[in-house]
Every structure is written in C-alpha cells, then in structure tokens.
C-alpha cells in the first residue's frame, strides 16, 4: 500500500513529486490483442502518446478504432484474454507490471474514470452519496460525517442541485445528466492526477451534453490533472480538447494541437472525417455537400501488415502506401506527428472540391403527400387509487398532443427534440405501429387507418419505416436477398426471378454488390446493415420513408454515406422522408422543412431555412446553442437547459416549455397557453410562444452578435 493513499489530497501534492521532465502519462508502443473464441481482435496496434498535467488530450476515432481500449488499458483493466505489448507509464512507472495492491491504490484515487452511459455505471441499489463516500473511505480514510460533507461539496462542485441532499437519492431518481455529474464527482473525489473520460456525453441529449461539456471545460482550469477525453464526436472534441490524437484501425495516425488539427489536417483520414460532419450553415446560407469516405475500416481481425492501413480508402493512395507502412513523421516544425507518406499533399480538396448541397425547388401549391391534423397519442389508461375505485391516481402519458404537420412529395421533414419530446411516438403512430388516440392522417388525400394491419396493402407499401438499430430490424436468420425479394414480391406481386433482379439493383443502389444477396445480417458491419435496411424500405417502392434516428448509431463516415444515399434516392425517385433525429447538424443537412417538438407539442415548424434563422422559439434556440460545433474557435453560447423533458400526464396550464424556458416571462407563460405565432417573413414559419416574434428575433440576433464581437464570454452557468 502506498503512503500517498493515507494522506489527504491537499498534502499529497507535495509528497515525492515525480522527476522533472517525466510526463504524467506516457503510452509507448501499446498493442492490445484479444484472443476470443470468435477470433483474434487487434484492438490497438503500436500506439504511442503522452499526456501532461493540466492538458486535455482528445482521443478521436470511429467505432472499433481502439480508443476505449486505450482508456481502459490506462487503468490496467483488460480482460484476461488480452495480450498487451509496449508499456503504459504513469509518472514513469509501468502500470502493466505493477503489483495488484499498488494498482488498486492508484485506481479511483490518482487515476479515475468517467464512463459512457452513466446510468449503467452507477450501482442501482445504492444511494449515490454512498457510492462517492466509499471512494473517500477507501482512499482517504474518511467516514461518517466527514465523508458525507466532502461528498456534498463534491456534488456542489459538479453543479448538482441541492448538494447536501442529492446523496440520499438512488441513481434511477436522477436524470441522465445528473447521473453523469455524480460519476464525475466520484472520479474527482480524491483529486486524481489523471482523469479518463470515455465518451462521457454519448447517449445524452444535446442539451445535457452541452452542460456536461461546460463542466469538463471548467474542470480543465480548476483541477491540475491530465485529462484523456475519448469521443467519436468531432464537435465535442473541438469544444474540450487541447491536443487531439486521431485513431484509425488501432493506430494513432495523427496528433496535433486542436486548432492546428481542425484548421489543417495532415492525414487524409482526418481530412475525410472533418468533411463528413454536416457543418453549420455559413453566411451564404449554402450547405456544403457532404463527402464520404468509401469502404470500411481495416478490420481488427486482420493481422498487422507492412502497408498503410488506410490505403484502400485513401483518395491519394500511391504504390508505396501498399508496400510499406508509413513511419510517424513530423508534418511541420512544431512536431505534429502523422502517419502518412505525403502529409503535405493533404488539403481541403483532398476529398474533392466542396460543392453546395443542391436545394430542391419549392413548389408552392402542390398537394401534400402526408397531412396530419390534431394527432394525439396517449399511453396507458387512467389508473384508480384503489385499483377498481377511488380518484384517478395515474393519468395516461400524453406523448403527442395536437400535432399538425404535412409533408410534400419528394421532400424531407426533419423532426427534432430531446428524448421524451414525442418524436418517435409521432413516427410510430404514422407508421401504424401504435394506434393513435385521436387525429386525422391523410396519405395522398386518403385517410390512413390507425393500425398498420387495417390499411390496404397499397397504403402499407407506400409508407415504410427505418429504425435506429438495423441489427434488430433485420431477421438474423434470413439472407439479405430473401428479405428484399419477399418485400418486393409482396408489394408488386411479381415472380421470384424478376424480384431477385430488382433486389440486386436495389443493393447496388445502396452501394452493395449482388454478392451480398446470400449473406446474413451478422456478416455485415453496422453501416452495411443500415444500407440493407434502407434497401428493404426502398423495395416496396414507397412514397414516404419514416427514418427514426436511422443514422444516429452510425459513425460519421458511414452516416455521411447513408445521408448521401438518401438524398440521391430522393432526387431520383421523389421519395418523401420523415427524418427523426436528435442531431441538429444532420437535420440542417437533410431537411426541407423542420418540426420541433417539446413534451409532445409542436413548438416550432416551418421551412428549414426559416426555422434555422431567428426568430427561433426559445426551445429551438436552446437546442441550436447546445449543439457542439466542430470548430475549436466557435464561442460556446450561453443558453443551457437543465433537467429533462417531463413525463406528461396532465395538460399544461401554460406553455409546455415554461418549466425550463430561459425566456420565461413568469405568470403569463406558466398559466396561459401561448399562441402559435406566424412569422411575417414566411407565413409557413410558426412559433409557439408568448413573446412577439419581432422581439424574439431582435434579442436573438443581438445575442449572436454579442458572442462574435466579445472574444471572451463567460461560459456556462
């Protein structure tokens, strides 16, 4: 047991400082290989990096690139089947050869971790206070009142409401953002020297993500620790990192200070990743066309070879790239290591000239394809206090309340909102997977029955749905070909041979060749599965495709492939899309019209270009300002929403958003339902708000100007 663990953190700093010049963390030539029953997985291939005190190293890459493995290796936490090569030096001492007892003393006290999915990282049967106090007890010997007080001060420092009492709560009583704050408090308990954050905001709503990122940015200045921040999201990395290491197929292919990396990437993969992210609309109002990285990641099951692992997907590949592995070279005078033979050739045109995304011409008087009027969707029935009698104790959940919208043929309606806002519910009731409680839905002027089973076959094949998780929506036992053929035959009533021909064409249209017909879903990557799911939706030749978070689980490079695919299909076949997503970048990129939902109510609707410009409803404004921007110089805006969308069982007295609205006017907003105001510039643009739109627009423009004019704006709350 080390002496350090007996001392309070305040005095510990002065004990035996490591030798001058030794970095806090040095990972040298790290290789991690898992030997599993299903094959060998080379998760990390010869990765090296260092982390110094007081800096944030962003570790970015797509799924399967080994970034999380690196994080867990840094705590020497790998399954027994892992073989580790190289060394991980914490203050010069190798964690891999450290005795178990010493390692335990380091964990949670000097090296601490924050995890993805905080809900599962907390013990559900233990009060959160106890979970923090046991760290204090184990490492600092604090117990009883002293531990409780320290836990409360930790809760306060991470911005939890009511810090003295929140410790009595169980994890399920907290929102996702609050749970993550508890996990962060737990990690900070012993003032660690090294903090590992593994996708700490993935899976949280953008609004919550923004508040957690504020906290991380603030921690960076407050604690004198080195932070390794792992994320797949370039916007998040741009917001918090000082330096960024980009991982690809288990290698670190480029490492640079954050501004340098975003301004001038030196590896073609980095450049490609940056061009895959739907960027915010620029001053000209033009949306740059997305590029995509063809192919897929060099598989972890493949051995290390003497070649560039990115060669097969690289637009500037040369013979030498396939014959020998590129060494790590310096791209400029300051270092900036990169694993490429030709870093000087990488520029903004590596992936082709940026072109504006083609805008579809808007026809003004075309009849809508889908018309939804007064859609209500309630879940559950009234429950009585004494089961069979008594006053009602639980009302049904009001997931959609009086939702109206329309989709024109060949256009895309983007639906946004936080989780719990009723987006998916709306999708499911239009698809007929849930029977709507009330409301009228017309497709091509014909009424659409509430349940999908009650719709005539013609209507069934006109509306198709694509889900977030393609693996769960494709039958794992059926070859892909038979899924497609069945769908084609059912909707068009043609012979098997003919249907097979169409199926092959469909697969080709989503970028997969006919060889995939006989494969089963599990043999495909997530992106390929989602393309198959899209092909299956196309198979029925639908007029409307409802995509519920269809690209959310995909890596950016694959997401770009799917988005491009959707845009192409729309141009060729005139298919309309109802596109549900929490990612505002994606919404901006793909939508012609936007519908913003909050608590089951429509709070803003209109053409995309109008909705994305002020005036915004205060909720849209909050969503937009929460979205992370892949630009390290972007000034984070100050509007933050705390908490989560409430579960609604009672009708609102006032505005549905009043409880969290930063622009709440008080009595009026809380007690009087707001009017749907019409934008004078574009009558299709409507906002549910008590504040007159001119006033909203002026305020919001001023806030934007204020941000860009003043360099240093106070961050967060």
């Amino acid at each position, binding site marked *: 047991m080390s002496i350090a663990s007996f001392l309070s953190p305040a005095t510990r700093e002065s004990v035996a400082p490591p030798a001058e010049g030794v970095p806090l963390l040095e990972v040298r030539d790290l290789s991690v290989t898992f030997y599993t029953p299903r094959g060998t997985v080379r998760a990390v291939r010869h990765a090296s990096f260092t982390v110094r005190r007081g800096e944030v190293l962003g570790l970015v890459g797509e799924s399967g690139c080994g970034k999380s493995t690196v994080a867990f290796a840094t705590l020497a936490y790998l399954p027994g089947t892992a073989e580790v090569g190289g060394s991980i030096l914490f203050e010069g001492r190798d964690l891999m050869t450290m005795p178990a007892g010493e390692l335990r003393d380091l964990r949670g006290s000097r090296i601490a971790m924050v995890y993805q999915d905080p809900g599962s990282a907390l013990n559900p049967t233990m009060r959160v206070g106890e979970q923090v106090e046991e760290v204090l007890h*184990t490492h600092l010997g604090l117990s009883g009142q002293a531990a409780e007080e320290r836990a409360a001060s930790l809760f306060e420092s991470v911005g939890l409401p009511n810090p003295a009492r929140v410790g009595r709560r169980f994890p399920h009583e907290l929102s996702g953002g609050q749970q993550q704050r508890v996990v962060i408090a737990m990690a900070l308990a012993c003032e660690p020297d090294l903090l590992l954050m593994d996708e700490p905001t993935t899976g949280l709503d953008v609004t919550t993500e923004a508040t957690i990122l504020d906290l991380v940015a603030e921690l960076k200045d407050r604690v004198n620790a080195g932070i390794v921040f792992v994320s797949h999201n370039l916007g998040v990395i741009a917001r918090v990192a000082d330096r960024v290491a980009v991982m690809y197929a288990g290698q670190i292919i480029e490492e640079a200070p954050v501004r340098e990396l975003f301004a001038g990437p030196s590896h073609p993969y980095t450049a490609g990743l940056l061009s895959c992210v739907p960027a915010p609309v620029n001053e000209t109002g033009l949306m740059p066309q997305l590029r995509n990285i063809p192919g897929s990641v060099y598989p972890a099951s493949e051995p290390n070879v003497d070649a560039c692992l990115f060669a097969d997907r690289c637009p500037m590949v040369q013979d030498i790239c396939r014959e020998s592995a590129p060494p790590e070279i310096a791209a400029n005078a300051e270092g900036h290591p990169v694993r490429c033979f030709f870093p000087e050739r990488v520029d903004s045109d590596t992936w082709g000239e940026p072109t504006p995304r083609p805008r579809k011409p808007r026809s003004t008087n075309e009849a809508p394809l889908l018309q939804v009027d007064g859609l209500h969707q309630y879940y559950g029935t009234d429950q009585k206090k004494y089961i069979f009698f008594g006053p009602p104790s639980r009302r049904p959940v009001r997931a959609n309340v009086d939702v109206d919208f329309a989709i024109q043929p060949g256009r895309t309606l983007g639906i946004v909102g936080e989780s719990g806002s009723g987006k998916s519910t709306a999708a499911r009731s239009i698809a007929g997977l849930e029977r709507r409680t009330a409301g009228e839905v017309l497709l091509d002027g014909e009424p659409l029955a509430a349940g999908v089973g009650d719709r005539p076959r013609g209507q069934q094949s006109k509306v198709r749905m694509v889900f977030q998780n393609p693996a769960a929506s494709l039958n794992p036992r059926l070859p892909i070909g038979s899924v497609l053929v069945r769908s084609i035959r059912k909707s068009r009533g043609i012979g098997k041979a003919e249907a097979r021909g169409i199926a092959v064409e469909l697969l080709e249209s989503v970028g997969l060749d006919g060889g995939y017909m006989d494969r089963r879903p599990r043999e495909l990557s997530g992106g390929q599965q989602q393309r198959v799911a899209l092909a299956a939706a196309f198979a029925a030749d639908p007029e409307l495709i409802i995509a519920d978070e269809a690209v959310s689980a995909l890596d950016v490079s694959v997401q770009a492939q799917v988005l491009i695919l959707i845009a192409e299909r729309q141009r060729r076949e005139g298919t309309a899309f109802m596109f549900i997503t929490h990612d505002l970048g994606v919404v901006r990129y793909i939508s012609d019209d936007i519908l913003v939902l909050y608590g089951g109510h429509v709070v803003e609707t209109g053409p995309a270009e109008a909705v994305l410009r002020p005036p915004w409803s205060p909720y849209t404004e909050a969503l937009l300002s929460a979205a992370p921007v892949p630009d390290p110089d972007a000034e984070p805006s100050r509007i933050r929403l705390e908490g989560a969308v409430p579960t609604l069982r009672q009708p609102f007295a006032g505005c549905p958003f009043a409880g969290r609205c930063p622009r709440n006017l008080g009595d009026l907003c809380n007690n009087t339902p707001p009017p749907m105001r019409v934008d004078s510039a574009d009558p299709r643009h409507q906002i549910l708000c008590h504040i007159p739109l001119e006033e909203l627009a002026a305020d919001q423009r001023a806030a934007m100007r204020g941000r860009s004019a003043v360099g240093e704006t106070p961050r967060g709350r």
Partner: protein
Amino acid sequence: MARFLLLRLGLIVVTLLVISFAVFGVTEVLPGDVATQILGQGATPENVAVVRERLGLDDPWPMRYASWVGGVVRGDLGESLVQRLPITEMVGGRLVNSLILASFTFFVAMPVAVAVGIWAGVHRNSFGDRLASMFSLVAISLPEFVTGVVLIIVFSTTLGWLPSSSLVEPGTNPLTRPQILVLPALTLTGVMFAYVMRMTRANVIEVLETNYVRSAILKGLPMRQVIWRHVVPNAMLPTISVITLNIGWLLGGLIIVENVFSYPGIGRMLLTSIQTRDMPLLQALALLIAATYAVSNLFADLAYTWLNPRIRFA
C-alpha cells in the same frame, strides 16, 4: 408503504376466497358419500339419512359453502369426521411441528445455498464451482422420496448416526430431540438448495459483468467490498423471486418427507385425511397450506421491495 401492505393483504383475502371455493368444489365432486364413509359399508339407509341430516349434507351447496367459510372466519375449522374432534385442536400441534421442520430447513439451507452460490459465481470455473454444479445437478434430478430413502440407508441403517424415524412423542416438541429433524430437513433441502444455489451463481456471474461493478473495481475498492456491496445486493434480487417460488415447493415437499420419516406434521395429516376421506379435515388443511404460501410470499415481496429501491414504495 401502508397502502402497499393494505393492498397486498386485501389480495391475500381474495386469493384465499378463490382457493376456498376451489377446495370446496373439489371435495364436493370427489366420489364416495361421506355418511356411508363414516358408518361403514353395512350402514342402513335410515342411518345414512340421519347422519346426512346431522352433517347438513342435504342442504344446497351454497349454504354448506357459506357455513363452512363462516366457520373458518370465526376460527372454527369444523370437526373431523374420523376422529370426531374439532379440527382446530387437531391441527394446532401438527402445524407447529411442520413449521419447525420447514423453518429449520429454510433458515439453514437458504443462507448456505446463497453463500455457496456467491462463492461459486465469484470463483467461476474453479474446481469448487464445478463440484457444486455437479452436486446441485444430482440434487435437482432426484425426487425427495429417493433422497430420503438414500439418506436413511446411509446415515441411519448403515452408520447408525441418526434415527430413521422422526416420530415425536405425544406431548413433547420436536426440538427436545433436534436430531430427528436432521434427515427430513436434509431431504427437504436437496432440490431447493440446488435451485437457489444455481440461481445465485448465475446472477452473481451476470452482475459481475455489469458496468457498475466495473466502476466499483476501477474506484480501487478492495475486492471484498466490491462483492459484498455491489455484486451481492444486486444478485439477490432475482434470487429472492426463486426463493419465493421455492416456498411452494417446500410445502409440497413436506407432504412427502413427513410421510417418509413418519414425522407428525400437517403433510402427513393431509395424506391421512385423503385416505380416510375426512373431507372437513382435508379442506381445512388445504386452506391452511394455501394461506401459509400466500403469507410467506408477502414476506418475500417485502424483502424484494426492501432490497430494490426502484420499486420501493411503488
């Protein structure tokens, strides 16, 4: 909480009413006339008629049901047809005997089963784990009457360590000779022990894989604390459900085990009442067993609620 208890107690009353109806119905349709049964084969029709009259057997069934249930509610279980004694008196001592045997089994076997399960789960695939798994498989596959007889042969006939019969002398309590309890309890334990142990083991293994156990390990907690504070409470939740189910098994097992070991409990009495067509006694015992089951389930649910904050006070 009070509301939860009230609701559950109300439900138990409803359950028992339904069961009383079923028990009454089943004894109604059983073949054989009770009056003939009492008087023997040679009874004259006149005598049979008199007895039927006295027992109220000629009343329509709803009336007989109502008077029976009414009696039960007042604590009067009726009179045994065979022994002509108030059932309440007959059952009392027997019930205590059975409860002693059941509790002895339950409170000794369950903690041990859970402990072994935890140990096996933590030391997965070790020699001890495999041994425990093998033992539990054997125990699950053997019915009580086989285990009982095997135990008698080994410990009583061969080794002579324990008595083969567990008769209790009238007027004494089984606890005055606790050694008579060992073999019946062991027999009764077999299957339950195996189920609970395997379930605990599986749950421990599952919980060990969760992210919150990973967090606990990476907080630098000693392994013992990780297991006792993070793994065990969570692994116990589904285990409690299995234990609850096993209470029913335990009550059923009592009938067999008490007969194998001649132990004077309600299980043995139940079998006797069936053999002698002592309907009032049979009805009373069936109802009693159902009530025991319902009440012990309530306690199991309370324990579950207490361990699981997510449904506490729900």
